[in-house]
């Protein structure tokens, strides 16, 4: 049982390429469906309230991860929130540089558990900080498909001057 003798000649090294097309469908589920239908048709964010924890989760979800209660009380929540954290992505999914960088944030909504990861936008050169108030900008009604990209981005909330 010895160690194998390794090749040190580049000429002898071989490699073979492989790839498969990976395709899947994903269902949004009971709560996800209500969330996205409401977003598309009414242009608002829907949460679900947990009666035992007295918390409202955004986006709406079917169960409470704290107490495991099934959530059935759907409530609309205000579509302006607060920047909880943010980053500027200088690299895209293929590893190529992004110029200008894409600004992404985790946005929380007052009185709610959870939040949304989304793009931040606004005037060119707009800068953002943790704690900034932002509001949701939707695509035109006709262009909405019932998905997370029905939200164009979040921009500085009206009247929120630092």
């Amino acid at each position, binding site marked *: 049982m010895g160690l194998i003798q390794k090749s*040190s000649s580049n000429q002898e090294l071989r490699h073979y390429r492989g790839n498969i097309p990976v395709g899947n469908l994903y269902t949004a589920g009971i709560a996800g469906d209500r969330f996205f239908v409401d977003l598309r048709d009414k242009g608002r964010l829907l949460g679900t309230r947990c009666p035992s924890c007295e918390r409202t989760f955004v986006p709406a979800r079917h169960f409470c*991860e704290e107490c495991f209660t099934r959530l059935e009380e759907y409530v609309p929540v205000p579509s302006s929130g607060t920047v909880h954290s943010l980053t500027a992505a200088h690299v895209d999914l*293929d590893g190529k540089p992004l110029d200008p960088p894409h600004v992404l944030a985790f946005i929380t909504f007052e009185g709610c558990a959870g939040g949304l990861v989304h793009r931040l936008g606004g005037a060119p050169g707009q800068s953002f900080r943790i704690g900034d108030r932002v509001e949701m900008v939707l695509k035109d009604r006709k262009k909405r498909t019932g998905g997370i990209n029905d939200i164009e981005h979040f921009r500085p909330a009206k009247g929120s001057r630092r």
Partner: protein
Amino acid sequence: MPRRVAIIGVGATVPRPVTPELSYRELIHEAAVRAYEEAGVEPREIGTFMPCTEDFYEGISISDEYSNDQLGAVLKPVHTIGGDGIHGIATAYMQIATGLFDTAVVEAHSKASNVLTPHHIMNYAMDPVLNRPLGENPLYVAGLEMSRFMHESGATSEECAWVVVKNRRNALSNPNGAFGAKVTVHDVLSGPAAFCPLGALEMAPPSDAAFVVVLAAEDRLPARAASPVWIRGVGWSNDSPTLETRSWARALYAEAAAQRAYRMAGIRNPARDIDCFEIDDTFSYKELQHLEALGICDRGEAGKRTARGETEIDGATPVNASGGSLGCGHMLDATGLFRTVECVRQLRGEAGQVQVKDAKTALAFGWRGVPTTSGACVVLGA
């Protein structure tokens, strides 16, 4: 009382950015040969095997089916772990401590150089409805986490950069330190931007390596085995996987994993009771965040203590004396086993130039990387 369990042999290949001369199975075979040699056993004498593997990074469907022959485990009980190498150590510990087996082998490896589309694979781990349609590089998750961690802990960019300076310098003195370098805080901060505030030089580059660890019960130590290193505590835990409900500032998964391991090992004050730490440093801030989560530093203190040199090899709490992932490379799900093996070398006094003086107790902590909230911890004793 469950049986005491020891690591009696480790085998590893030297981490490198590429390994074109070996197939991934030959890489594992090499580590296995070294491990069995140290443990003084033949694979046919081993009771149970725990390979750790993940299909997409392997590029092979049902990759767990391809784990046994290069380990000498054909027609043996094999229990594949879809997790970090330290999850494998915990499973091996349980299978021996319960008396089901007397000996076990844990294997984990990285052939990251074979992976042509790592960010796409990582993106396929993101929520397909809420997050993936944004079409961004999923490493933005690290940028979001770093921002909030810095905001709440008060850690500065300079303090994060110190982690890179220290770990890459340590790697210069470690034969396993593929990315050893002398860099300054200024070099790190003026490097290319990646996911601000996270810079490109604050992200561990990938490397290839394989690790095999042989474990045995105290009452069944092979006569020829290397001096035993005891498993004193194990713990593992996950925060909520959803981006929407996880903690962005704190590594709660690490807090929960460490508490379990400390309780089992009888550790009250980790900074005092543990001599050296090999903990996840996939990104610069992660070392600081994990130091606080593991209770080694008070909240808000990890950056300051790092900048003061307290986590250097000769400091009060040596952290990643090996060079960690920033200095030796990130090895996918083998990263935790790499840290475990570095701890074993420390406790045996075999760590050469990166040896921590009088190391009697060591801690290895692994995190499974973006976008997971999965942490596993092992406390080892000489």
